[in-house]
Each structure stands twice: as structure tokens, then as C-alpha cells.
């Protein structure tokens, strides 16, 4: 039996990008956590040593997935999903709390974060559901079933007080969009975000007045007048949304979330408090220059000026030590991976394979975009890891499983009738 037939025909290019990212990530963790450049790398008391072990196990997982029959995942998609939901409930009961989030299963010194693994289970279940015959977004029940499918894990994770990981499930909107959900949902999402921001900055009254003025302006054009009813509805809904922003912002959000948003919008300067992380991160990245300070020369990231530098803020180490060239390489690697996944997804014969592929791409993209955006001050600080880079076994394994299930689907695509 040749290797090809054992694995099917995996996309070696994608695997190569994956390996590059993992290696690049480990080198960054090494620099962020090793006392000096010559430190022995198999040091299990240190993060860089542990991460090496996690990478080894991740490669083992990847290898195993490639050996498993591709149909296994589509067949047992709901089983995976159901099991993960039970685990998510279990962690609410038996889990331990780290940094305010009750989202960990502790095994001695070692901890697992089920929320990370719920992503691939949800992606599988979503793919399975949407690839079912006669399911379509023209049916109302499809919409609410999908909402429950995605909303359930998000809600459970929210209950663990891990907002960042819960927000990741928003990424699946891209999958739904690809499969036919109206683009208006995305557009209205963007519009709502915009309204939310300008309302916080300028206040309800000004924004409402501006909306009203905008509506009149639109109605000046004769060809829009015929749709005055829908325009009116949009106006009323928008104004209602704008007036609910205040409540949402001050009553629903936690104080630390509120401050993070205010800091991001520049409404609050608090370089030693809520703004500390981002401020230090920006300084670290900004001081990297074109080609960086050099490996192991990041005087901010190496001297603990950036909090969470080997986990959520690992991007700073690259920004400071590798400079603009280094981060460009990183961003290009991610974009290459994402576009490659889209390309591979589109060539799937099965709907399941395609939809799952979009799920993988969407989740990876969301992590990539939000993580980098928060480190450079584009988004409020949301604690989610940079895939394959950030220190941590759970996230590395979860992303590896997520990706390699797709690689296996793709490897096996020609066997799908």
C-alpha cells in the first residue's frame, strides 16, 4: 500500500503552510519565554519546551486523522457535536477557573479547554446539517435550526465567561452566506457595528438626527420614493437600535469590556490600566521598524513589558523582533492558507466537504483577524489566540484537528460519488 493511497491525496501545499506557521510560532514562543537564545529547547518546565511537546502531539493527531476514513467524520458529525455539548456542560459543573473563565478541565498540571474543540464539532455538525438534502435558507426552520446549532455552543461558552471564544461562532455567518443566507445579514451586522460605535462616540441624539437627515436626503431622489415604506422601517429600526445601544453598552457589557471598547475608540486614555496591554503591544510592534530588532532582541517582549506575550499577544514578539517584514510574512502565510482552503473547499464534490472547508476557513480567519486587530488597536481586547502561534496545547490541537479533518476530506474527495 503506497503512502498516497493510505492518506488518500492530501494537499501537501496546505500541510507545508501549516508546518511553516507552527514552526514560526514555536520560534516566537521560544524567544518570548526562553531566558536566553542558547537555552535547551526540551525544557518541559518552560513554555517553549511544553509547546514543543504539544506540537509533537499535534503532528501525531494530524497523522492519525489522515489515517482515519474520511466518511467517519461526516457520519459521526452529530455525535461529535453532541459529545462536545455534553463536555461544555460538564466544564460548567466540574471545570476549574483560570483568569475568570470557568473553561478548563484540570488534569494535574495540565489543562484542557473544551471550548477550543467545540469549534470543529460545530463546523462538522453545521456541514452535516446544511448538506442534508432539501435544506435551504428559503425555509424558515433551516434558519432557526442553524441558529440553535451555532448558538448552543456559543451560549455555553458565554456561560463559562469566555466571551472571546463565544464570539468566534459569529464566524460561521460566512459559511451561511456562502451557502445562500442573504448578504443583508452581514451588511446589517456591519451597519449595526458602525451605528454602535458612532453612538458611543457621539451619543443617541446626534446619531438619530443624522439618520433622520440621511433619510430625507435619500427621499429627495425620486427613484427611492417608491420604497418609502421599507426606508421608513429601516429608519425606525435604526433609531430604535441606536437608543438601545446605551442600555446595551452600560447594562449588558461588563465594566472591563466597556472600558476596552472605550480605549479602542480612543474615548479613554488609560495607559496603565485598561489600555495597558494594547499600549504596550503597540509600542512593542511599532518599535520593530522595517526589519525588526533581531531574534531574541525584543527588549519589550523579552522583558515582560507586554502581558500575555506568548499566548494572545504573541504577534508582538514577531512585530518587535522581526519587524514589518516578519509580520508581512506571517500575514501572507495566513492569507495563503485561507485562500488555499477556499480553493480546496470549492473543488469538493460533496456539499459536506465544501461547507466544512468554509467552516475551517471562517474560524481560522476570525481568530487571525480579531487577534491581530486587537494587538494593533483595531478591535477591543478579546482574549482569543492566534492559530498555530499562540502558546497552548488546546488551541493548537483544536486548530490542527479542525484543519486536518478538512485536509482528509479533500484528500478523499475523488472517492466521493
Amino acid at each position, binding site marked *: 500500500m503506497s503512502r498516497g493511497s493510505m492518506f488518500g491525496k492530501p494537499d501537501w501545499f496546505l500541510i507545508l503552510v501549516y508546518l511553516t506557521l507552527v514552526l514560526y510560532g514555536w520560534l516566537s514562543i521560544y524567544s518570548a519565554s526562553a531566558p536566553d537564545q542558547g537555552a535547551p529547547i526540551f525544557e518541559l518546565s518552560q513554555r517553549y519546551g511544553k509547546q514543543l511537546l504539544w506540537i509533537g502531539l499535534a503532528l501525531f493527531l494530524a497523522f492519525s486523522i489522515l489515517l482515519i476514513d474520511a466518511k467517519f467524520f461526516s457520519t459521526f458529525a452529530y455525535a461529535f457535536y453532541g459529545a462536545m455539548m455534553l463536555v461544555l456542560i460538564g466544564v460548567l459543573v466540574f471545570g476549574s477557573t483560570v483568569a475568570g473563565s470557568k473553561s478548563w478541565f484540570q488534569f494535574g498540571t495540565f489543562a484542557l479547554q473544551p471550548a477550543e474543540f467545540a469549534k470543529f464539532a460545530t463546523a462538522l455538525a453545521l456541514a452535516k446539517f*446544511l*448538506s*442534508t*438534502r*432539501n*435544506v*435551504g435558507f428559503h425555509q424558515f426552520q433551516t434558519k432557526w435550526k442553524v441558529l440553535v446549532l451555532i448558538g448552543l455552543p456559543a451560549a455555553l461558552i458565554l456561560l463559562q465567561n469566555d466571551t472571546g471564544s463565544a464570539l468566534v461562532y459569529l464566524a460561521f455567518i*460566512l459559511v451561511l*452566506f*456562502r*451557502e*445562500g443566507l442573504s*448578504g443583508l445579514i452581514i451588511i446589517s451586522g456591519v451597519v449595526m457595528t458602525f451605528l454602535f460605535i458612532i453612538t458611543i462616540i457621539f451619543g443617541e441624539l446626534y446619531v438619530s438626527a443624522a439618520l433622520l437627515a440621511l433619510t430625507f436626503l435619500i427621499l429627495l431622489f425620486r427613484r427611492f420614493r417608491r420604497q418609502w415604506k421599507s426606508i421608513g422601517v429601516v429608519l425606525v429600526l435604526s433609531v430604535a437600535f441606536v437608543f438601545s445601544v446605551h442600555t446595551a453598552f452600560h447594562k449588558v457589557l461588563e465594566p472591563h469590556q466597556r472600558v476596552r471598547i472605550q480605549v479602542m475608540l480612543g474615548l479613554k486614555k488609560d495607559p496603565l490600566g485598561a489600555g495597558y496591554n494594547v499600549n*504596550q503591544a*503597540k*509600542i*512593542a*510592534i*511599532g*518599535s*520593530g*521598524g*522595517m526589519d525588526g530588532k533581531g531574534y531574541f*532582541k525584543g*527588549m*519589550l517582549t*523579552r*522583558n*515582560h*513589558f507586554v502581558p500575555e506575550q506568548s499566548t494572545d499577544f504573541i504577534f508582538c514578539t514577531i*512585530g*518587535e523582533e522581526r*519587524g*514589518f517584514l516578519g*509580520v*508581512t510574512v506571517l*500575514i*501572507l502565510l*495566513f*492569507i495563503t492558507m*485561507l*485562500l488555499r482552503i*477556499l480553493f480546496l*473547499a*470549492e473543488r469538493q464534490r460533496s*456539499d459536506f466537504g465544501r*461547507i466544512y472547508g*468554509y467552516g475551517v*476557513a471562517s474560524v481560522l*480567519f476570525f481568530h487571525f*483577524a480579531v487577534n*491581530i*486587530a486587537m494587538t*494593533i488597536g*483595531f478591535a477591543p481586547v478579546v482574549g482569543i489566540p492566534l492559530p498555530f502561534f499562540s502558546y497552548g496545547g488546546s488551541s493548537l490541537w483544536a486548530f490542527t484537528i479542525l484543519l486536518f479533518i478538512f485536509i482528509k476530506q479533500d484528500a478523499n474527495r475523488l472517492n466521493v460519488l
Partner: protein
Amino acid sequence: MYSKNFSRRRYIIGGIFVLIALAFLVRLFFLQVVDNQYKMSARNIALRTVVEYPARGRIYDRHHKLLVYNDAVYDLMVIPKQVKNIDTAKFCRLLDITPEFFREQMAAARHYSSYRPSVFLKQLSKKEKGPIDEIMYEFPGFYFQTRTLRHYPYPIAAHVLGNVGEVSASDLRADPFYSVGDYIGKSGIEKFYEKALRGKKGSRIVEVDVHNRVRGSFQDGKFDTISVPGKDLTLSIDEKLQAFGQKLMQNKMGSIVAIEPSTGEILAMVTSPSYDPNLLVGRPRSENYNRLLHDTLKPLMNRAVSGTYPPGSTFKMVNALIALQDKVITPQTWFTCQGPDSKPIACSHYHVSPLQLKTAIALSCNSYFWKTFNRMMNDPAFPNTHDAYENWYKKVLTFGFGHKFHTDIPFEVSGSIPTEQYYNKLYRGSWNALTIRSLSIGQGEILVTPVQLANEVAIMANRGYYIAPHFLIAMGKDDTIPSRYTVRHDVAVQNPSYYKTVVTAMQEVFDSEGTAHYYRMDSIEQAGKTGTAQNPHGNDHSIFVAFAPVKHPKIALAVIVENAGYGATWAAPIASLMIEEYLTGKIKRQKLLKRIEDGDLIHNR
């Protein structure tokens, strides 16, 4: 799935991916490449410049005895912005300060700058800093800066050595070398040789971590500079002679300046009253300084260089030499003297008459020198008295009077030899020898400093030249001293026979008929001259100038004891004891020594 009509949406999704990535790249380009603000911030946060203070040069005496060295002390510095969450009570306890003091110092430091270091607590000893030094990491924003304080093993020559103090605002403006809290030579040698003594500061750029702990040098010390220690100075001062001179002058006002004639090196420069230079060091400095500043006896004043006195009879040698040079008299010229009845200048006592130059010097006859001066002013070689005066004036100046030496003598003043123009103005052009007769006996408008007076005897000792009095013998290891410290200044009178006459007369001052015969020593041939300078403020100043040994002079000195009467009473014995001490190393005349040491002219007046 019922339809695949949506496959074109892949471009929208791919487009979103690419768009976001591009937005990141643009943002990062501005953040990292265009904007320099973050590079500055990073340096401010993660780097600290540690100034390496060089050790200030040490000062030795002519026999390589250490006169000034450094003691390490530690300034506790604070950068207010970096002070976070410290246990103030513990901090105060370890430093033995009150919480009020802590608050005051912090407020003062913040007032100066939140980001720049200020001195929180000055000059802690190694012992005082010990307890807190071990746990400095508990107090971010604080660190120790090593400083050096001067220490003087011998409590002598305070005015010569000068002192070191914190830089003033004007020092800071004048020289960018200094920063707040630095030390600078404030007076004396410390000030004159500041640039050599201070050395070169070094700086180390170190990386600190978020807890303000030093993590190592920045870029392997690529931008570090090494401090260069200040140069050591060797001065011409003889520690033993200086200490001896100060002992002799205790409880008297005045000064002693002793010079090695062949080199111009100042062996001792005593001014009295004086003080222990260790008083102006460290934390009690300003209190002590204020006390000295307001003392009515002016102990801070260096009388040896900035006190001006009429030279009195010690000036007669100069007049004698110029008269001989101008041939208005010869050593054989006879003049008469009627003692205190003499006109227009009375002599102090009755003595042989008529008399010749040698005897006139030995007996310090005023009549003889008035007559000599009168001849000079009416010298037929010149058309009038004014031109004759101008001639005299120029010649006097060559003896080192009326101007500064411009060497390393601190706070030197010029003294004064009146110019022709001065008299023209004073007497509206109408004056003659009689008007200015006081000059003949070193009184009147002539004012000299003790250094100038010592230099005058050095000229006698050298028979016609001097080397500008100075302190520096060597600087650093291989620096040559400035050439102006070795250049020979020939005076207007060069004929050796004239000097023979004058020096012989000065020897006779110590003979049985001479004014200083009590202080004759059989073992050492001394040459000297008494002076009794009238001054409008009180009793006459007692002056004596001398050099010895006559044949190969090793020491020339001037002694002034203010308001002490005749030159022979106080100044002459002091000069003679100085000579004995310097040339033999011990004093045989213990009784005389005791009389001088015990003499109290300040409290028993």
C-alpha cells in the same frame, strides 16, 4: 443542499480575507515603518542610561603624599513615574527617614520631572545603603547612583586645594557635561584643574524589565562609553612645611608664602585663620560653609593671594636695585640720617650716619631711601619727573608687582603699583618726588600680595629672574605641565654685583646690628628684610621676607602678620622657623617655636 447558485460568493469571502489582510499591512506599515513615536517610547520604557561616574583625580604633595582622595557614597535616585505600589512604611524604616520626609522628597522630585531622575536622598554611606540595597527590586523607580566625595587626610591647605560642591544652575547652563546633582570644583586647585580632575563620564545603556530590574546591557554594549578617571595632580606643596606654617600662624591673622626660587614652585601657602577642608564635604557642607562665610575673621578669604598690603621696607631692595641700575647711586654712595628727626621722612630709630647702601638696607634706614628715590625721580637722564617715574614704574613691574602671574594660583589679585596717569589725575598733573615720597619706603599707594612679596625675594635669591609662582608639578601620567610654568622672567636689573650688594645687606639683617639678629642661625645662612607696613585700619602689619641658604637658595618666603607691629617681632621669627623646618626637617629653637605657637594675636588684642 438544494442549490449551488451561490458559488460566486466565494469571491466575496476571499475578498474579505484579502481586504482585512491588506488593512493590517497598511496599519502595520504606518505603525512600524512610518511612525517613529513607538521607537522612542520603547527606548523610554525598556532602556535606562546608567551614568558611570569617573573617580575624580587625586591630589598629591611634592613628596607624593596623598592630600586629597575619594570616598564612595551613594545617592538614592528616584524616577517618580516608575514608582508604583511600594511599601512606603518599610522603605522609610530601612532608610531611617520619616514619612513626611518621604512625601516632601517625592513632591520635590515630581516637581522637577516625573520622567527624569532626581536625587531622593544624598550621600549615603555603604553601611547606610546596605539594608535597602538587597531588596531594591521591591521599590521600582528607585536606584543608587555612586558618587565620590573628597576626603582630606591632612587638615591643611584648604584655600589652596579648594573644595568641591554640587553644580549650580549657572554651571549647568555653562557646560553640558554636568547634570543635576553632579559635583564640580568650586574653588582653589579643584576649580582651576576641574577639567583634568573630573575625568570623562561614561554611560551604559541597560535593558530593564517591567519590574525595573536590570536585565543586561543593550545590544551588547554597542552604545556604551567607558568612563575615564580624572587625572591625578602632583602639587608643589610640601605637606610638612604647610602644616608647620599653619601651626605657626595659629591665632594670628596673615599669611605665609614659600617658594622654591629655582622653579617658582610654591612650597607652602598659609593663610590664617584657616579651616579644615573636611568641613566642606558631604551633607554638613552647606551648614559649615555658611558658618565660615559669616565669620568676622573671614576664614574663607585666602590672604596669601587676595590680601593686599603695603610692602613697607621689604620694597627697599627693589628701589635699591633700580637706583643702582639707573646709576643714580653706587654701593659706595653716602647719605646722612637724623633718625626720627629726618625730613621729609622720619627714620624709625637713631643709627650710624652717614651710611652706605648695604648698611641702609640692614638697618632699614628711611632717609637713605628717600634720598635715593629723590635722585631717581630727578635723574638728569630724563627730561622730567614724569618720565623718570614712568621709567621707575616699568622697572618695578618687571619684579612681578602690579599684575597677576596667571598661573594656577586661585583668586589671585593684581595688587597695585600706581601709574603716572593715576598721579596726574590725583594731583591734576602737578606732582614731584616729594609728593610721592612714600613710595621710596614701600608705603603709599603701593599694594602687593604675599605671593608677589615672596616672588620678590625669589628674585633676590635667583639674582635677577623669577619663574611665575605656581602649584602644579605633574598632571596625570604623561602630561607635561604648561610651558608658562617654567619660563624664566628676567627683571630689569641684571648686574650680579648689584645683587651681591643687596644680598649681602640682607644677610646683615641677621647680623648683630641687623633688624633680625635674634633669629640668626649658625648652621644656615639666611638673607632677609623686615618690613613694618603702616595701614589705616589699625596697628602696623609685621612683615618679613627671606631666603636661604644664601649660596644655593632652596626657599624664599614672605610672612605677613596683620596688625602685629614690627616686622622683627612676629614675621621674622616665623620666616626663620619656616626656613629651619624646611632645610633641616627639625626645630632646634624650641623656645622660640613655643613662643610663636602660643602667641595669640586675635583673642588677646
